């Protein structure tokens, strides 16, 4: 793994992109890394553009914001269109299969049926964020599986803990 | 009531700065008498909070007690902070109508809603006295003040009725021609747990009476006497008949749980399992 990895997870408010970033960041902390996670959202609670950014590094992290990212996880068409230009040429792109128009890119592309899997297997598309995390970890190994599972357990309420862990496992099968 | 009432026992010995004929003297005297009759030999255990204005100067610094003289309108939140952290203290707020029902009205309503266990005495002189006699939210319609030179054109607020409706455990109104009743109300308020509010309609001969057309203090007191109507009687009258009247008496008296009870019993019981 490179010394510093910058991940951007973007979508719409209500898709859980901020939580996904928090889980990823927490997992990296459990792996002993330096981590900064930031988020951006509108004043509205639902439907506006939302993004979560995670920087994972072996060293102390100074500037906390992602500029050119190594990994882009796009959960909506709007997010993909907005952020694809900031993805590094040798970067990794994960897109939900709900997104139809994928621009030309040199990045390594993974189409992940996260929302579909969440709906079909877990009965609720709200788990798409954690399904996506499963696919992300499978393809990139930017955190250990153990750290990720621990982070999920500690980031979600008890009554949806099992469902989220299952979502993560389903995601690991995708990608 | 083991000893004879001596007002000096409760005071620092500084000279009150109020004008001759000011209703505040009656408030001080009746309040401290009530304290005495409840058996308090001094004011230890009391904390007085007051904002800005003549009535706010009643306890601060003249009472020989802990007192906080707060920013204008903020005596109630300060008192709320004190009471929540030290529930064993008897927290009493003094303030005028401008301080409590003008700039600080929001806090007054919310304190009643919370039923925080503090006692509020509002001296209602129907005017901003300290600043020279400007119209207040309590000034009767059609009164000449320094900022309503052509007579006031706003309706006054019935503060006691509002506070009774907002959730206070105790609310009463008397005037300075009813010092005995006021004293008894203070005793009751101090004994009842929960938010207690007493409005004392009071004369300000200097900043109100003069411009409003009263020749002297006696005329103002006469006005109170002639226009006061007991709440029980007022309930049988219509609003037209009540215009310009001062409804006196007890507006509410109940024993609902206080904010402190709810914080400590409900929340702490839960968190401590």
């Amino acid at each position, binding site marked *: 793994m490179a010394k510093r990895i910058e991940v951007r997870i973007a979508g719409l408010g209500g898709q859980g992109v901020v939580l996904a970033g*928090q889980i990823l*960041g*927490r997992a990296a*902390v459990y792996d002993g*890394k*330096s*981590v*900064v*996670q*930031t*988020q*951006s*959202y*509108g*004043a509205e609670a639902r439907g506006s553009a939302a993004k979560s950014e995670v920087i994972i590094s072996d060293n102390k*992290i*100074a*500037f*906390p*914001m992602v*500029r050119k990212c190594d990994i882009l996880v796009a959960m909506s068409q709007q997010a993909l269109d907005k952020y694809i230009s900031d993805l590094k040429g040798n970067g990794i792109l994960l897109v939900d299969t709900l997104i139809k128009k994928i621009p030309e890119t040199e990045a390594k592309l993974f189409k992940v049926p996260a929302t579909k899997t969440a709906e079909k297997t877990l009965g609720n598309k709200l788990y798409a964020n954690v399904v996506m995390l499963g696919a992300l970890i499978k393809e990139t190994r930017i955190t250990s599986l153990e750290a990720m599972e621990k982070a999920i357990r500690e980031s979600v309420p008890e009554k949806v803990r099992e469902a989220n862990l299952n979502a993560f496992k389903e995601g690991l099968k995708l990608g | 009531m083991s000893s004879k009432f001596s007002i000096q026992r409760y005071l620092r010995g*500084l000279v009150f700065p109020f004008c001759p004929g000011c209703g505040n003297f009656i408030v001080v005297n009746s309040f401290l008498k009530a304290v005495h009759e409840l058996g308090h030999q001094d*004011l*230890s*255990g009391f*904390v007085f*909070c007051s904002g800005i204005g003549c009535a706010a100067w009643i306890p*601060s*610094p003249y009472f*020989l*007690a*802990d*007192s*906080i*003289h*707060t*920013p204008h*309108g*903020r005596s*109630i*939140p*300060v*008192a*709320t*902070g*004190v*009471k*929540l*952290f*030290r529930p*064993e*203290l008897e927290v009493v707020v003094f303030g005028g109508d401008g301080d409590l029902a003008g700039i600080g009205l*929001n*806090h007054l309503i*919310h304190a009643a809603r919370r039923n925080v266990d503090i006692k509020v005495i509002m001296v209602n002189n129907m005017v901003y006295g300290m600043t020279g006699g400007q119209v207040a939210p309590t000034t009767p319609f059609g009164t000449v003040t320094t900022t309503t030179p052509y007579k006031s054109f706003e309706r006054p607020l019935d503060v006691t009725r509002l506070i009774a409706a907002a959730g206070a455990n105790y609310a009463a109104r008397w005037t300075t021609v009813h010092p005995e009743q006021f004293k008894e109300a203070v005793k009751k308020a101090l004994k009842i747990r929960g938010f207690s509010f007493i409005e004392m309609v009071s004369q300000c001969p200097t900043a109100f009476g003069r411009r409003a057309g009263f020749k002297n203090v006696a005329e103002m007191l006469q006005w109170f006497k002639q226009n006061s109507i007991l709440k029980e009687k007022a309930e049988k009258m219509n609003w037209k008949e009540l215009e310009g009247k001062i409804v006196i008496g007890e507006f509410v008296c109940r024993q609902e749980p206080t904010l402190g009870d709810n*914080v400590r019993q409900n*929340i*702490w019981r*839960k*968190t401590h399992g």
Partner: protein
Amino acid sequence: MASLLGSGVYFWQGNEACAYGAIAAGCRFFAAYPITPSSEIAERLARLLPLVDGIFIQMEDELASINAVIGASWAGAKAMTATSGPGFSLMQESIGYAFMTETPCVIVNVQRVGPSTGQATKAAQGDVMQARWGTHGDYVPIVLSPNSVQEMFQLTVRAFNLAEKYRTPVILLVDEIVGHMREKIEVPPIKEICIVNRKKPKKGDRSFFAWAEVAPMPTLGEGFNVSVTGSTHDEYGVRFTADPEVHRRLISNLVDKIEKHRNDIVELEAWNTDDCSTAIICFGCTSRAVYEAVEEARRKGVNVGYVRLKTLWPFPAETIRRLAQRVEKIVVPEMNLRQLFYEVERAAYGMAEVTAVNKIGGGQIITPEEILEEILS
């Protein structure tokens, strides 16, 4: 307490770290009104305070919040409130009151884009001067500025310690980025956290105000018959509404009480400032870009150093003056349209060129590239 705040490594949001820092510092009273981007502090303390027999209350507005905090402080509590720009504006009168009455308390302002409602969820550093001069009259506030989640914890503890030590309100001036970012944080064992408590009077003491040094502070209900007032008062709390001498003595002592202890209060992080040709003066989230800009500049052969103000006020004018004697250029990046800049320029007294990098709106942080450009220009 130990189980509530076990030492170790956590992944916390800045606002969360502030709440835990408050608990560690001994905060047992918190009153606030919801406002973005500070509400997480209230939400966390609503959970934590009942666990340590502390009081949390959501008040009807920010005026009520700061005044409840002041009341609780006199009742013996270490007390705090948290807000953002609009609420901070509302609190100004009572911050002056807390200064005037020597009431220890902590006010957290997580800055957002202003003036007015501005942009509620977006970061800014536009309240630098309001934190210094927000209330009317002459006063000296203590204002601390964290730049990481770790410092949100540490400086919250420090804010309480300074408030208690100097019997004065202390402002923790945060920005949305530091308040909302999550980082790894190491919480030290509770026993290793330095805690300062206010000096208490002895039985029979009657003078509690306006000392040249910090006066002892009685707690309500302990029989001291303390008279607290925001009006001009003497050592005994007695009002003097017209006496110029009493006012002069009171305010001089309140100001000197802070000014005399600048060395204890002012905390800076300085790097390579002894022989650099260009220096950067920075604070809060912007400093995180400065670290990278400085590294990059040095790679390009430019000798750059920086001073980061962990204490914004009192302003370390003497440090800046000495720096200005040595360097050619001073760069002041800040997310406002020049606020700290003028203070630096004043301290530099024409001995060095002072330039600014400014950015406002949308929460756009100043980037290392933008600072580098100014260094190289």
